[in-house]
């Protein structure tokens, strides 16, 4: 006779296949109530991440990618923000229905976040050792001395030279790349199941960017964590992501496994993004740019939000919101993991 243990609401993720994805965002809406009106920053986002998988969320500034991440972390300021509908399932449990205390225990321990600007995300008046150790003191009630020892260990893990000597230094005494390593160390401290990295390399210069991304990818593989990588840098995505979700005006407009997306985009917006990457073999030619500006979220265009900027826009695009539909081959065989929210995805992907 088998006894199925139902008490463990949050099953251990890393051993074998658990039921369902690690994180499952379903039909998430976030709006901000401002003096000018209601800003609909996120309008029905769906995505999921499994253990050990990297999801890249791609989009321009204001496309709602960071707001989605903050909603997952539960660090949106409410008010002005509101989540009128949607579910964020972590290990199958809807986090939006949890108490604040339950969510606080998940933050940092089970889901951690890496912020864009490490200098402003580290407290300027506390030493990095103190801030790293805080993770252990808050979540595990460790003593000050043990926490500091752990902090040194972590700094070693993220390859900060002379960690023991630098544990009492303050954030401004580190260079940009080292600071971002400290942020990564903080996020990794309690070996969370999921890490959300919000443009982790945007504030760094290119050589350091590569190192930080490599480090992040290496640690993710080692701990078999899920990773949500929020970025607008298509170059970063290609190397580390497993699948991509492209966001525009608070919606996901295309999802695809990473290399599929680069080969055959199924949404004109994605195509525009790919075409606007400078390429050596097109030296001397004018660089493509998507014309127009991202929409004002106070008044998103009717129909497809991208229609004013789209080359393919027809009348139907100005009236009907395209649903996110499964993308298939020409002959109708389904392409796994691919979806597009375009009325003309067939024409876009198959030319």
């Amino acid at each position, binding site marked *: 006779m088998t006894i199925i243990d139902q008490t463990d609401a949050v099953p251990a993720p890393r051993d074998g296949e658990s039921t369902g994805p690690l994180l499952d965002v379903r039909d998430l809406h976030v709006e901000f109530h401002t003096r000018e009106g209601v800003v609909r920053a996120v309008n029905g986002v769906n995505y999921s991440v499994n253990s050990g998988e990297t999801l890249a969320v791609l989009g321009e500034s204001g496309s709602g990618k960071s707001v989605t991440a903050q909603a997952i972390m539960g660090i949106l300021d409410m008010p002005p923000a509101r989540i009128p509908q949607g579910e964020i399932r972590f290990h199958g449990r809807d986090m939006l229905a949890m108490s604040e205390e339950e969510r606080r225990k998940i933050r940092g*321990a089970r889901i951690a976040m890496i912020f864009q600007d490490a200098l402003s*995300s580290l407290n300027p008046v506390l030493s990095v050792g103190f801030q790293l150790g805080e993770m252990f003191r808050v979540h595990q009630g460790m003593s000050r001395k043990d926490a500091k020892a752990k902090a040194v260990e972590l700094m070693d893990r993220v390859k900060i030279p002379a960690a023991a000597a630098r544990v009492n230094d303050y954030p401004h005494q580190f*260079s940009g790349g080292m600071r971002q390593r400290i942020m990564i160390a903080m996020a990794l401290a309690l070996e969370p199941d999921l890490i959300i990295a919000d443009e982790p390399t945007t504030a760094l210069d290119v*050589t350091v960017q590569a190192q930080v991304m490599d480090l992040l990818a290496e640690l993710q593989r080692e701990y078999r964590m899920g990773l949500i990588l929020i970025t607008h840098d298509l170059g970063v995505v290609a190397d580390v992501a497993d699948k991509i979700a492209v966001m525009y005006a608070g919606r996901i407009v295309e999802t695809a496994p990473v290399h599929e997306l*680069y080969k055959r985009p199924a949404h004109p917006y994605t195509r525009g993004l790919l075409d606007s990457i400078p390429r050596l073999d097109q030296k001397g030619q004018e660089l493509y740019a998507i014309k127009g500006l991202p929409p004002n979220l106070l008044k998103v265009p009717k129909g497809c939000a991208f229609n004013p900027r789209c080359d393919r826009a027809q009348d139907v695009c100005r009236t009907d919101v395209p649903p996110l539909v499964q993308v298939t081959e020409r002959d109708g065989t389904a392409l796994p993991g691919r979806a597009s929210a375009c009325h003309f995805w067939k024409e876009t992907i198959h030319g």
Partner: protein
Amino acid sequence: MSEKTIERPTTDEAALAKEIEADEKAAARQASLLKDGWADLRKRPMFIVSGLVILLLLALAVAPGLFTARSPFSDGFCQLQNSMTPPTSGHLFGYDVQGCDIYTRTVYGARNSIIVGVVTTIATTLIGGLVGMLAGLIGGWIDALLSRVTEVFSALPLLVGGLLIMSIWGGGDVWSVSLIMAVLGWPQVFRIMRGEVISNKYNDYVAAARALGAGSGRIAFRHILPNTLAPVIVITTMNLGVYIAAEAALSYLGIGIQYPNISWGLMISDAQDRFLTSPHALLFPAGALSITVLAFIMLGDVVRDAFDPKMR
């Protein structure tokens, strides 16, 4: 289209070495804000001068017996036949109208001035700091309410408020004077604290601390509070001198410290009628008061220069 459209540089030893070098350069810069400020402070002559004067005043306040053999509270301390005697050897500051030795009274007066200054400063910092922090952190209608209450207190002028409180509670010792000034003085600290908390609470590191699971108490006291301290320390140091001067003013006007307690303000008030014939009775306590206030305000000034990054 090729699979990878952008080639990114690969991690190699040279790049890492470069990063480490940049990092070491950053580390060579001065340490924390406080250490930085302290290092800066020690080099300023104004800090050394005011610091020495304040140390002397503290010694006077703690152990006046070290500086004078007489006690103003002993029997026969005041001899009327000595009334208004100018300075002589052995009685360097002369005698006042009651025939009391002015030097001894001036020495003993330091204690009350210092007590009033320190107690008032601590009280205003605690009340204003705590209430300001609450208002800034919670915001909304609680902030609005607390701010309005604060404005009621700060709308009362010191003298009117002093008269009012004295007539309600009476008093005339250091504690009642400290109470008056604390009640009327905390709004200043409140405003600074509230502003600092509000400007700090939207910083990224607060969001980051929250994202890593810190609770609101920890965020308030561990993360926001240390970042608000520098301006509060500055205003507190400057206020010490201001409060000492205000105590003298209240006592001079008869609504502060009263007999038999000793206060420089009271001594000045007593001596003013005979200023033309025997100026010494006024000049010595007034000089002591001026030097004390000047020392604290100078200290406040250098502390502000050292700690306030906007002043650099």
